[in-house]
């Protein structure tokens, strides 16, 4: 029951989709709530009958570190890391470009490695360290790759830019930014439909050569 109470608390805190709604529905189903404390089989049956309980029971509680802050969140099954970041944590800097792992707009760092967050289940990330574009700068001090992107005009519309920058940082950290061709190969998972590629390569080369900590 303690676990359920914690989850209820979470539901109140973390259901930006429909504030209060799950909680309200849950409370409405007081008979079911009582059933919860009795027998597990009854609980399952109640779950089938009452959508609120069902959806609540299938949620997974997660604790992870996002951009240096510890975050607790309850996620539905099948929710991608991308949608969790955007819809539940409000970190909309990470973009949905295809939801199929083809475009790279959703790339974030998980424990320091770049990951297509759209292909990655949120529920698998308990205890992980996530860095998104919002976590790259140090307050008002932009990250050297962000600075270089501005200087070299390495974007037009800016939509793929968070993914490009997260990939670019990984490219330099992985030691794959020594030549333009090496950069092009590494960065080829990130599509820029505005065609800023030459400027992106120039920006990465400069950030790498600057000798700053990337």
């Amino acid at each position: 029951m303690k676990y359920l109470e914690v989850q209820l608390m979470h539901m109140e805190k973390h259901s930006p989709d429909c504030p209060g709604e799950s909680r309200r529905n849950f409370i409405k189903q007081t008979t079911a709530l009582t059933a919860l404390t009795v027998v597990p089989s009854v609980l399952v049956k109640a779950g089938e009958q009452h959508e609120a309980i069902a959806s609540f029971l299938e949620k997974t509680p997660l604790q992870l570190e996002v951009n240096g802050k510890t975050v607790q969140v309850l996620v539905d099954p099948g929710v991608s890391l991308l949608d969790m970041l955007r819809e539940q944590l409000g970190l909309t800097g990470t973009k949905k470009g295809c939801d199929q792992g083809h475009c790279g707009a959703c790339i974030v760092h998980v424990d320091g490695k770049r990951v297509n967050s759209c292909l990655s289940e949120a529920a698998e990330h308990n205890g992980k360290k996530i860095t998104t574009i919002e976590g790259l700068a140090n307050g008002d001090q932009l990250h050297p790759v962000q600075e270089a992107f501005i200087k070299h005009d390495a974007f037009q519309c800016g939509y793929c830019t968070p993914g490009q920058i997260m990939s670019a940082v990984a490219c330099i950290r992985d030691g794959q930014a020594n030549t333009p061709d090496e950069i092009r190969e590494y960065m080829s998972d990130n599509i820029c439909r505005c065609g800023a590629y030459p400027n992106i390569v120039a920006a990465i080369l400069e950030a790498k050569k600057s000798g700053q900590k990337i």
Partner: protein
Amino acid sequence: MDKEKFFTPSGEEDDRVDGIEKVTGRAKYTADHKPENMVYAVFVTSTIARGAIKNLQLSDAKNAPGVLEILSHLNCPPVPGYQPWAKDPNKKGFEWRGLKPFQNNLVWYYGQPIALVVALTWEKAVKAAALVKAEYVAEVAETDFEKFRTDPSRLKPSGEYKRGEADAFKKAEVFVEREYHTPIETHNPIELHATIAVWDGDDKLTVYDKSQGPKGTQSELARNFGLDEKNVRVISKFVGGAFGSALRSWPHVPAACIAAKMVKRPVRLQLTRRQMFTMVGYRPMAWQYIAIGASREGKLTGITHHAVSITSRYEDFREGIVNASQYLYDCPNVNTSYKILPQDVNTPTWMRGPGEATGAFALESALDELAYKLNMDPVELRIKNYAELHPVNKLPWTSKFLKECYDKGRELVGWSKRPAVPRTLTEDGKLIGYGMGGGVFGASRGTAAVKAVLNSEGKLTLYSAVSDMGPGTATAMVRIAAGVMQMPASGIRFLLGDTEFPPGPTQGGSTTTSTVGTAVSMVCETLKAQLIELAQKSPGFSGLSTEELACGNETVYAKKDESKKISLGALVTASGKPQLEILKETGPDPAVRSKYAMNSFSAHFVKVAVDPVTGAIELKKIVCTGDGGKIVSPKTARSQMIGGAVGGIGMALTEEALIDTQTGKYLTDTLGTYHVPRHRDVPFIDTWFPDKPDLLINPMGSKGVGEIALIGFAAAVANAVYNATGKRVNRLPIKPGMLV
């Protein structure tokens, strides 16, 4: 205006004004917004290409967790603006007003929206959408363009042109003729199209929308939902690319609004990548025939150009495929024809460099072929037939620096190394070739209004409803204002993408800088005059005439004694008003239009290396030159030119959307199967602009580069491939298999 001092004071950074927002993830695009209580909508789409829905089985979906509503033709509430059309669904009187979602059970193409599931979360909406089952009465669909493009009974004539004699090439000393094929190309901006609809009661609507024209979307929604325009607000602050796909509002826009009204909550409808192929237009597949005749000396004597392109059965879409053939070169005899073929597909739309890019592939390839036949340098052939007057209307151009582009392009690409005989130059075992292609596009100026607000701190804010899909409108506008006011760009902001601001044009056709920039320039000139007038009333300035005063560095100062100055902020305070506000509307200049032709021009040069064994094509060098008049914002204009070239690389080498002609379904409906250029496909790109102001078009002298950046590029690649391999490719995209 002080022409020498135009544009930002020298030495100032020319970075994008919205750069920090874009690199930090703070820029909010449509789907990044989340109004309170918002729910999610997902389309169910048709799995036949032609026919009618017999039955929609919705009960499973309705009972699925979290589902609030399922919108379909079975329950769609009346949409006032649709009624005249709905009464007579067979009448084609609705051209350009698009598919009306959920008004009847008809299916016009595979992937058409047939229902919209609204649920508490996106995942729940997706799951429920999969549970909707449709039964159809299917009819035989026609999606085979190649099969039917020659059937006159199916074709709709869409314009003919003739000057001099038709088919004069037949009498020419030398001529070439060939057919050209271009596939469906999709815009596929990386931002998925999305709309968030928020109703406030029954008569007030706010819409976040990915739109190149917020004002256009506003008036369409007002018309459709029977609302006062002032009660409809459209917000498009950041647009993640579009290239034409957001020039008009597509069915998902009203669908989101209808759904939001039904569930009485804000609704977000974001298309999936698959739906980006079937719901927001594409560059139509086209067939072209072109023949060019010339004298042995290379003077053109006749051009014949015919084209057919695909459209939907519910809308006629036409574009200027054969237009440039009428006027890019001086030729006494030209005849062109254009027809469209309606099929069971979704409606195409303008894609960057619209029809001209398709036409230029044929025209510029054919000229290249002619040059070899004449044993002439392809650039010399173009210079020999350089049009000094617009060949259609015989008017002089406001400006034309295309020859300068040819010269600089040749120099930068190393044209002198081009072998006159194909397949004779190799480097590291690869066949080397050089090619070029030119482009042209209109450079007109439209109507826009801009409001300027100067506050008591001397900071200037400009407002326009225009949106920016990426080229950098705000950056260019700030630079124009900084030039007129002679103040640092850091003291100026340009706010856009909101219909609460004064009306701005739809961003398209390379006209934004010219159109909105003119309004910015005029409003700042008026503001400057007002400030000088205020200064004259200030202590210490009496007796100084208007001519003796100037604006600069956030002050008005005496030209003869620059220490005598008063800050703009102080002048605002002196005016007794909290801020100075000026609204200015500008439009096209009919006097100039009647006397001159107005165009931007480009010339693209490419060096390729082709593997003789595999046929793999590598772009070794790219030089894009463009006469876009005065370049207002060099950094962003260069990026725009590079972006056009990358689009051209896609057109030339990678992009092809295929439809299964049996079912009408797109076979390439992901970014994994529809190949857009990636990092590894794109080398460094050189750009060059003559940068000559065209002051007849607008006070900045700017002509626009968005379209010319792409037009003619694919031909440059094809011509380089011919130079390298001796194989003339007349079908895009060029594939390695075609070269071995």
